[in-house]
């Protein structure tokens, strides 16, 4: 059965079909009185699968890890640097795989590189991702230097690698914030009312989430002695993520509702617990590798949950015409009132 | 109309855009109702009561177009003093014979013509041979007469008879019978009458559903009476438009695929009534009759010349005896019953799917399963070709594939874009189609099929000495062929239809050129002129923007490329247009001829003041103001003194199956309806018979825009099937509540013939009506589905029994009674038990059938 055959909700298109959010969730917004076409969505739900939600996480992790790696490189924390660079590379690999896989025509992924289009966050993101990938790749490649022979042509290369790695790492770090935050623009620049309304906040959610996950990777991968900045970043990122997410969940009127109900609500509640617990662990477990590792894992899981939560909220918002119609109606009423 | 004729409906929308008011009267709110200015729901089967109410309103308020009515209709004509109306006889007219269930129409005649009744005492024979239609179309042999009272005061003049007959069709009665509120009824009357007259005209449009009633012909007669009273006939913007069910259904009555007619509405000879050529011709015309039917002999001789060529000679009565003869009822339903009874061995189906499309589908399938052979020509393997392996009767065990002896020959057919020829649409306009592409594979055109079938049959009997083969051996069967499959040339056939002068081969330009001496040949007299000047006039496609608004150079309309029939009536008796706005044809005194926008439907140079000599007959007998030139008295008939089996005036009778007692008369249903009382054709009881409450609801069927009739052309196409993918039934919210039906759930509809399941659409577009203090629920079903195709479902036509209109033998398949229940129907043999249980509860058994004459009627 095609999507069109999803059972129509009750109603004849004349009077409101559904009121409020229902589903047992606490309704913060008064029940919305609205009309629709058989309760069908006005906009299309995203065709993106969970691959894209996963990419939000892996891309953010890559960015965060690259930042950690660059800081570690500049401040002489080799273990943290290696962790950061390797994590970034692994996350990049996953990202590339997820992005290509989610295309309707994966064999045509290179078509993204035909154009650079400022109005398309995905086009911009493609170039950011490419630039970052190149730099982060070099940085990660530099980490193989110690295993290379010191003689001959290869040896020459091996000796040049650390310097190249630093350049690559710094270049990656320079593009990392863009990689971490462009995805917020990617989601916001849609007709999806929940995503679009969140555009002032979503970059901070994703920035915080990326920092928290990057820090968490450092906490897991590097000894506690070197991982101080990672812990600090993790805590700061978690704080930013929690604050910004709270705004998304509560400061957008009716359009906050999709973030609180259903699958998105469950995911974002879990994200809050995990992120808060991870941040606490990062603060309290500074001397314990075990606590640090557990805290890091919690932060990573929290970051994953945040990303999936935001993704699911968009689906919820698309599936119920209320979220499209009511805010637009209010906007019209305000305009007419003005 | 929007529902089944969306393309034609564009002109209604165009008219609406220009300010026309559109009123839609229908039991169910359709896509037409959605854009109409006014929608009037009424009970299925109550149309004569509704239209009778309009007639009464016009007459009581004297809103008729008096000058038109006096001059052009038979309103002033005085009827025999022997005539008794339904008012006097409890719903029957005088002359009813209970024995035959038919009328002897002697007393219906005009005064002084009682000695000239057609077919005295043979009403039942006429019914069996559907001869009523011929008589109606021809203008039966009514002699010209002078018994008129143009003051319309004579108590037996048609006007007064009409007034008395319809006096009881008051707004209150309309409300009581039809369920139409008096206010709404008043609005329709106002709109219709105020929009008719000198300056304005109103068009009446009906779809063929109107004909599918046991009183179908009288439905249309009711409309005709109103349009004549209001002066809407023969005038631009007026008329009665019959929307046909398929492309060229008009064509298939002009050059008929009907058992009772020959081309040009000449009757099929009856073995007893038309023993000789002379008797046959005299049955078509009457020696003392006015008008163009008086020339029937020229039409008949020319047709026989077209059939038999050189073998049609004066000595052998032009080959008249080669023609087969009717011996009785050979209508499609009689044939099906005869198949069940083993009396018919072979059957041709051409573009027809009776297993789905005809009333009483089960009888259709059982009949076909009892044949020796069956030829099906269609685009797809339709249900009528595969019934022997997948009909519903396989499941019930009534047809067993291994035992079914019918040999089916499936002949794949070319579609309309794969063959050339003409379509004739409802305006009688022929439009030539080119062949766009070759048909695929073995698909062939009808023309190819019949030409080569005839050729092969003739080869088989070439040396036969049997008398019965002589006609076929002598038939003119020579047509040019071309192409790899020897396709006959369709334009050669059209030329033959047009007719030609035999000596010179010159194509005729009009039927007025036809001769009765064997010097002309013409395949269909009314089509004569379609190949005038050797040019295929039907192929003309001059855009409307490049010619007059009547657009005479687009296609060709019979007769004589005339776009409005009887258009003499568009001018007043003196030949002056009724108004500037409605000028159409008029008398040009200077030139001494009729002229105008259209081809005048009148002798070109006969002045309006012309009065024939005493005793003049035929065309010469027409006065200069006899606008209805095909009628025996030159008048439009408000009252039909002859030609109808079931009475001179439309009268409300209940459908054969009705939950209601006739509120107007003691007589319940049409007393002359054609019935087949047999156990496999049980009709649900109607009052005053007992147990009608077993089938408490009224149902009707029709089409959806998205499908075409029995679905053979639409259920095979994904783009159409997806738009209406499943059989459904529409019920009102009130009925859904009463019967526990859920929107989108399953339900099944039960009659004495079948149980049919469907998904439920609960919709306010169907509404219960208050009839006579009772709530009457109406159910609607589309009839497009069957067992094969991309989308399948039960066939609504299985629900109907067989009762026919007596004039034309068309089945009553737009109204019946039923029950509806939630859930799916039983399957397999249990289905038969289920229906049998309903029959038992309804008291239906083989020993009793409702009498034609209701006890108490006729008094």
């Amino acid at each position, binding site marked *: 059965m*095609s999507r069109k055959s999803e059972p129509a909700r009750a109603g004849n298109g004349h009077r409101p079909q559904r009121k409020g959010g229902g589903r047992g969730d606490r309704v913060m917004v008064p029940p919305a009185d609205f009309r629709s076409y058989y309760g069908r969505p006005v906009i299309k739900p995203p065709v993106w699968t969970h691959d894209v939600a996963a990419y939000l996480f892996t891309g953010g992790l890559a960015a965060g890890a690259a930042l950690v790696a660059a800081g570690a490189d500049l401040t002489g924390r080799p273990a943290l640097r290696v962790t950061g660079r390797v994590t970034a590379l692994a996350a990049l690999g996953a990202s590339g795989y997820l992005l290509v896989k989610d295309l*309707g025509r994966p064999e045509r992924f290179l078509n993204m590189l035909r154009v650079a289009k400022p109005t398309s966050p995905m086009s911009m993101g493609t170039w950011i991702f490419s630039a970052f990938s190149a730099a982060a790749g070099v940085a990660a490649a530099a980490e193989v230097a110690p295993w290379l022979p010191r003689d001959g042509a290869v040896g020459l290369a091996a000796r040049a690698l650390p310097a190249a790695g630093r350049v690559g790492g710094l270049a990656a770090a320079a593009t990392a*914030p863009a990689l971490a935050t462009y995805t917020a623009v990617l989601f916001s620049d849609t007709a999806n009312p929940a995503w679009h309304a969140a555009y002032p906040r979503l*970059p901070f959610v994703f920035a915080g989430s990326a920092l928290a996950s990057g820090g968490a990777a450092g906490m897991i991968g590097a000894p506690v002695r070197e991982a101080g900045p990672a812990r600090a970043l993790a805590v700061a990122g978690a704080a930013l993520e929690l604050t910004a997410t709270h705004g998304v969940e509560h400061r957008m009127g009716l359009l906050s509702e999709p973030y609180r109900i259903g699958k998105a609500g469950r995911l974002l509640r879990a994200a809050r617990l995990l992120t808060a617990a991870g941040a606490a662990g990062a603060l309290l477990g500074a001397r314990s590798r075990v606590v640090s590792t557990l805290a890091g894992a919690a932060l990573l899981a929290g970051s994953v949950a945040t990303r999936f939560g935001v993704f699911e909220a968009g689906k919820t918002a698309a599936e119920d015409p209320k979220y499209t119609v009511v805010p637009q109606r209010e906007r019209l009423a305000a305009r007419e009132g003005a | 109309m929007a529902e089944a004729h969306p393309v034609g409906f564009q002109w209604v929308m165009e008219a609406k855009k220009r300010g026309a008011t559109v009123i839609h009267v229908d039991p169910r709110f359709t896509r037409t109702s959605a854009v109409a200015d006014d929608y009037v729901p009424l009970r299925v089967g109550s149309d004569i009561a509704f239209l009778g109410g309009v007639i009464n309103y016009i007459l009581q308020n004297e809103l008729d177009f008096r000058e038109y009515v006096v001059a052009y209709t038979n309103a002033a004509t005085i009827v025999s003093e022997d005539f008794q109306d339904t008012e006097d006889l409890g719903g029957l007219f005088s002359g009813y014979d209970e024995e035959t269930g038919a009328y002897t129409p002697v007393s219906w005649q005009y005064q002084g013509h009682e000695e000239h009744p057609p077919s005295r005492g043979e009403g039942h024979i006429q019914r069996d041979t559907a001869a009523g239609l011929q008589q109606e179309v021809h203008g039966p042999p009514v002699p010209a007469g002078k018994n008129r009272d143009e003051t319309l005061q004579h108590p037996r003049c048609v006007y007064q008879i009409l007034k008395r007959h319809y006096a009881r069709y008051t707004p209150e009665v309309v409300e009581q019978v039809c369920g139409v509120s008096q206010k709404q009824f008043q609005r329709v009357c106002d709109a219709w009458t105020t929009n008719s007259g000198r300056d304005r005209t109103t068009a009446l449009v009906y779809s063929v559903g109107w004909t599918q009633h046991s009183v179908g012909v009288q439905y249309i007669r009711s409309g005709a009476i109103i349009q004549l009273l209001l002066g809407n006939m023969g005038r631009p913007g007026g008329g009665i438009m019959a929307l046909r069910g398929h492309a060229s259904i008009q064509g298939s009555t002009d050059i008929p695929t009907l058992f009772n007619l020959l081309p040009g509405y000449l009757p099929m000879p009856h073995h007893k009534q038309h023993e000789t050529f002379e008797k046959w011709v005299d049955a078509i015309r009457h020696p003392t009759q006015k008008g163009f039917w008086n020339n029937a002999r020229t039409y008949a001789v020319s047709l026989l010349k077209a059939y038999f060529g050189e073998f049609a000679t004066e000595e052998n009565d032009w080959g008249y005896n080669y023609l087969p003869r009717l011996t009785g009822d050979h209508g499609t339903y009689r044939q099906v019953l005869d198949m069940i009874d083993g009396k018919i061995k072979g059957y041709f189906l051409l573009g027809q799917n009776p297993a789905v499309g005809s009333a009483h589908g089960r009888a259709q399938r059982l009949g076909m399963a009892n044949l020796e052979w069956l030829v099906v020509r269609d685009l797809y393997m339709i249900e009528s070709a595969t019934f022997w392996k997948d009909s519903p009767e396989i499941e019930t065990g009534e047809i067993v594939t291994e035992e079914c002896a019918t040999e089916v020959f499936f002949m794949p057919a070319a579609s309309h874009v794969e063959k050339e020829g003409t379509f004739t649409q409802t305006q009688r306009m022929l439009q030539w189609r080119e062949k766009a592409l070759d048909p695929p594979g073995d698909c062939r055109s009808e023309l190819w099929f019949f030409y080569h079938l005839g050729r092969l049959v003739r080869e088989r009997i070439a040396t036969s000495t049997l008398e019965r083969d002589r006609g076929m051996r002598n038939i003119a069967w020579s047509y040019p062929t071309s192409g790899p499959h020897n396709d006959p040339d369709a334009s050669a056939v059209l030329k033959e239809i047009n007719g030609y002068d035999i000596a010179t081969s010159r194509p005729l330009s009009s039927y007025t050129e036809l001769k009765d001496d064997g010097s002309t040949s013409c395949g269909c007299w009314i089509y004569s002129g379609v190949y005038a000047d050797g040019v295929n006039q039907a192929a003309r496609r001059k855009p409307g923007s490049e010619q007059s608004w009547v657009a005479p150079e687009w296609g060709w309309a019979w007769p004589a490329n005339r776009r409005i029939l009887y258009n003499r009536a568009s001018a007043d008796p003196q030949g002056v247009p009724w108004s500037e706005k409605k000028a159409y044809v008029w008398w040009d005194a200077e030139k001494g001829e009729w002229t105008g926008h259209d081809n005048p439907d009148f002798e070109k140079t006969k002045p309006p003041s012309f009065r024939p000599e005493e005793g003049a007959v035929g065309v010469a007998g027409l006065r200069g103001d006899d606008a209805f030139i095909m009628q025996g008295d030159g008048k439009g008939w408000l009252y039909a003194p002859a030609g109808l089996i079931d009475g001179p005036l439309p009268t409300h009778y209940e459908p054969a199956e009705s939950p209601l007692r006739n509120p107007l008369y003691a007589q319940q249903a049409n007393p002359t309806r054609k019935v087949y009382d047999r156990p496999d054709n049980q009709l649900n009881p109607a009052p005053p018979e007992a147990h009608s409450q077993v089938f408490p609801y009224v149902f009707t069927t029709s089409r959806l825009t998205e499908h075409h009739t029995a679905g053979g052309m639409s259920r095979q196409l994904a783009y159409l099937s997806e738009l209406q993918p499943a059989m459904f039934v529409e019920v009102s919210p009130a009925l859904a509540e009463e019967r526990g039906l859920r929107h989108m759930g399953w339900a099944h509809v039960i009659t004495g013939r079948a149980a049919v399941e469907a998904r439920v659409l609960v919709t306010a577009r169907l509404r219960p009506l208050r009839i006579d203090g009772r709530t009457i629920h109406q159910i609607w079903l589309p009839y497009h589905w069957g067992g094969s195709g991309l989308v399948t479902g039960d066939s609504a036509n299985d629900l109907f029994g067989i009762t026919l209109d007596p004039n034309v033998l068309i089945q009553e398949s737009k109204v019946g009674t039923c029950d509806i229940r939630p859930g799916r129907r039983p399957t397999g043999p249990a289905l038969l038990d289920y229906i049998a249980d309903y029959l038992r509860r309804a008291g239906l058994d083989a020993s009793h059938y409702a009498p034609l004459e209701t006890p108490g009627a006729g008094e």
Partner: protein
Amino acid sequence: MAGPNSLFGPIDPATDAGYVDAPPRMGFFTDTSVCIGCKACEVACKEWNAVPDDGFDLLGMSYDNSGELSANTWRHVAFIEQSAPPSEAALDVLREAERSVSTQFLGMPSSTLPGATGREDRDLRWLMMSNVCKHCTHAGCLDVCPTGALFRSEFGTVVVQEDICNGCGYCVSACPYGVIDRREGDGRAWKCTLCYDRIGEGMTPACAQACPTQSIQYGELDELRDRAAKRVEVLHQRGVPEARLYGHDPTDGVGGDGAFFLLLDEPEVYGLPPDPVVPTRDLPSMWKHAGVAALTMAAAVAVAFLGRRP
């Protein structure tokens, strides 16, 4: 980007896209007041564009079994059965009309108030509307397409090149009308092309060609807008106060639609957004916020590492 209104505001899209001497902008005016719901547009569109069928599902939404515009349905006829009058305001006008009819109706033809006849007890409306891609002046789908598969034609329409589209699906979420969609099993995005291959040859798009009642009118957008305004006026005069245009206004949230409508009820009743805005309108602001967030990240990293020697 060609001008200050490239993301939002009135503009000629073909010129903005860089066409020099572009032909007039072409579009659809869909007048739902004369739609008879025959769906010829749906079928003609599929026939011409070889769009696959959309499945055989009975939806129970009046006579709508297509459900919505999708990758496999580029024209979609909505059916709305309303068993109550449209609005109090409309009712007032109808009552007024009825009053004037009953006082003036002295055997005159009803042309003084065409359409008003009989409406007072019409308790059922069946609205039909053939929906289609809006070919927005500011098209969200086109803005966000990362491959250039979507492009602005010289006629100002928005068309997908199926040989370029890689099925990223971004356009699907970017359309404020829910029009463009990805086709299952094919992976690419599809929508109405306004019959780009026909109009380039001077032909009428298949749907408009097939429409028997001129509910779908194709032509130069400027001319269509004039025509539509007049039609609304006529309907208002004829006692149809609920008639209104949708998508005709170049100052609306998408800069006006290339395909606009005359509706008889609120847009959302037909499944249309009441006040659509192209998402890209806010793109500069989005990037600004993202920039601040990015700087915040960088700052956080700097602070975290500075002064923390191992």
